[in-house]
């Protein structure tokens, strides 16, 4: 085998491994969300992850990938439906020396993650039908548009926006959709008192939450380091390093912040701190030096704990704090390269310019800000229209009775924990003991 073929083969293998890691993050989301919600909804919350990824897989294959990466204009791709490859159809990905099927699987993982984030805002009260309809529309008409703007040859990419693995494209998008959903759905029954003070609705299994967080942390090596789509120059190792440093700083910053603000070394807060840091470093991982990765991770981990309390006090019931962890951290991460992008790394990646700290002036900072605002406005409007129409037609939310009974029984006909919740099985267990 000639060295060129060997290099291409290794690149393909690396992208496949990364795709598996990113798709494996669905496991992390299933555990994280199920652990962070109540027992009566656990089967639904975990199970919808499979449904979500199935919808994303088909919709992204048929339309989403073409709109994201297909040749077109500055706003959307208009070629490459069903992965139909022409001579210049997927030029936006021509920098990666791997076959299209690998590129698709890897990018599908990203679309699936963005959709998984959006579901955080739906948790414990949305109808199953809303998942089908919104999941398909998000994967076809919302996620791909921003993906195209930044990565598919669109206007933000042409401006030089730095978003290496998707703090804005993947995370902020999912988070804005989650925020719109949580506002339109309204708080869960029992979340707020009459005087608007919030109540705690604890997740049913903190161990699941922690394992979910760890699986996501591992998956992020595919997410960020895999975004190099090449192994030859070893740059993926550097990206993995900054990713890991940020996550570590986020964990420590979050648990310390929780201890300072509320007096408790809160475990779910620490898990969310890791995730917020990972979200933030996603844009910056290839553009910033290790020390800056630590700063970015720590700021994201710490600040998003505060925002999660703030939004709750403002009457927003975001059951797993998706908007803080993915939205606020996504903004922090995207803006961060405007400060910390180092000239050395900008030269390696060939995207944008150096940040303010390195004497690059406000140029990159302004572009990053435009990118965040542009993406946030589009996703907010598009998500609002889709969800509002859904609300007014088929309805978004289950009935109060269904919500109280739990979505496992009301939407799927069986409990995730029958021995604990189903009267028939509870009685049966007692009989067995006697």
């Amino acid at each position, binding site marked *: 085998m000639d060295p060129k073929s060997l290099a291409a083969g290794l690149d393909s293998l690396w992208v496949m491994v990364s795709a598996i890691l990113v798709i494996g993050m669905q496991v992390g989301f299933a555990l994280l969300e199920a652990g962070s919600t109540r027992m009566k909804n656990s089967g639904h919350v975990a199970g919808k992850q499979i449904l979500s990824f199935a919808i994303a897989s088909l919709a992204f294959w048929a339309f989403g990938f073409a709109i994201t990466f297909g040749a077109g204009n500055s706003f959307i791709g208009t070629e490459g439906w069903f992965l139909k490859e022409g001579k210049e159809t997927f030029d936006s990905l021509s920098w990666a020396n791997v076959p299209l099927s690998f590129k698709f699987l890897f990018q599908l993982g990203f679309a699936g993650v963005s959709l998984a984030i959006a579901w955080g805002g739906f948790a414990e009260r949305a109808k199953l039908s809303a998942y089908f309809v919104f999941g398909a529309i998000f994967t076809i008409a919302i996620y791909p548009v921003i993906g195209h703007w930044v990565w598919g040859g669109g206007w933000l990419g042409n401006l030089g926006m730095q978003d290496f693995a998707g703090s804005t494209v993947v995370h902020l998008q999912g988070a804005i959709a989650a925020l719109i959903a949580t506002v339109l759905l309204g708080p869960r029954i029992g979340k707020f008192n009459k005087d608007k003070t*919030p109540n*705690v609705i604890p997740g049913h299994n903190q161990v699941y939450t922690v394992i979910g967080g760890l699986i996501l942390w591992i998956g992020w090596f595919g997410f960020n380091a895999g975004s190099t789509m090449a192994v030859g120059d070893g740059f993926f190792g550097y990206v993995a390093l900054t990713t890991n440093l940020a996550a570590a700083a986020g964990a420590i910053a979050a648990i310390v912040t929780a*201890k300072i603000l509320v*007096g408790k070394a809160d475990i779910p807060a620490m898990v969310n701190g890791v995730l917020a840091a990972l979200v933030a470093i996603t844009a910056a991982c290839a553009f910033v030096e290790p020390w800056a990765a630590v700063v970015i991770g720590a700021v994201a981990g710490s600040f998003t704990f505060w925002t999660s309390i703030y939004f709750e006090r403002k009457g927003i019931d975001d059951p797993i704090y998706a908007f803080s962890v993915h939205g606020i951290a996504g903004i922090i991460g995207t803006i961060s390269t405007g400060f910390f992008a180092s000239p050395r790394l900008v030269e390696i990646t060939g995207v944008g310019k150096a940040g303010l700290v390195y004497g690059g002036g406000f140029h990159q900072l302004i572009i990053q800000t435009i990118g965040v605002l542009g993406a946030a406005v589009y996703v907010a409007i598009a998500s609002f229209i889709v969800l509002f129409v859904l609300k007014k037609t088929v309805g978004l939310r289950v009935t109060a009775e269904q919500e109280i009974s739990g979505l496992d029984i009301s939407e799927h006909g069986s409990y995730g924990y029958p021995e604990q919740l189903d009267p028939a099985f509870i009685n049966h267990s007692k009989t067995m003991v006697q």
Partner: protein
Amino acid sequence: MEQLYELIQQIDRAKTVSELSAYHRELAYRLRNFIERDTIYSLSHTLTDVHDALMKKALVFAEEETIHAAVGTPPKKWCWYVMGSMGRGEPTLWTDQDNGILFDCAPEHEASCYEFIRYFATVGTNYLHEIGYPYCSGYVMATNHRWSKSLRDWERQIETYINHHFPDDIRFLFIAMDMRPIYGCNELIVSSKQNLIEWIGNEPLLLKRMGEHVIFPHVPLGWLGNIQIERWGAYSGSIHLKHSGYVQLVNSLKFLSCLGNIPAMTTLERLQDIDARVLLPSPLAKKAEEAFLTSLYFRLKYSMELGNERDYVPLRVLDRKERLQLKRAMKTAKQLQRFVIRRAGELQDE
């Protein structure tokens, strides 16, 4: 203050429980004019006198009813005592009940005396509830057998607390340290309390456990000097005044009192004796006094303003100066807790 002493005279002349209830409400009204940080200690004393008068009068009615009901045999000596903030002479306006009864009688009459005491306890606690002293949520009341006993049983119980290592023992001992006689034979309570302090003082292992207990609850003051408010629930955004320095100061000083065999009643008296015996560095003792008076002031002030909300105060209602005062007091409470933990740690080696 004159107005408050007039109220005591009116209470003494009361003929019914409902009159007492009205006087309790009247107390709230009259007290409003006297809440000042600088005179809080003397006000606290006067307030204790009024509460004592109300409770004593209610217990006179309860005793009459018990005798009239002819249940059991009245013991030769008995005493109704109070604990908690009432026991320390530093109550808020709407304090709840923390009380019990000790009695002394010949062994052969004990069963019959218990009948009398239990009936008396039921009537007494009901009357107190009626006049505005809610039942204790932790059931530290005369109707609980744990707190109403013959002297013999009481001493056996204290011995159990001291010698057996059950998790609640330390909590019960801390509660019992605040016993103060209110109606009946005072000597029973004074000597029981004196004995209790002596017994505890002679048990280094127990003292060490008590010192370790003082670390709870944690003072809700963050490392950056931020006040930690309730995150969730009906009191979201509020601070729990009792747990924001006050109880930590009180318990720390109780521990040091045991070390020094000090049977003082009020927290300030304890602190003065602790200072006199050099059980605490003088600068810290001075700060502790300031902090305690601040905590007392806030508790009294907001117990009036918030009524049934009791110890929970929304942080937003405290102005900048008050927040600074409270933070300073909380910081001192933390310092004192740390001192006690260190001191308790040394006991192991003694």
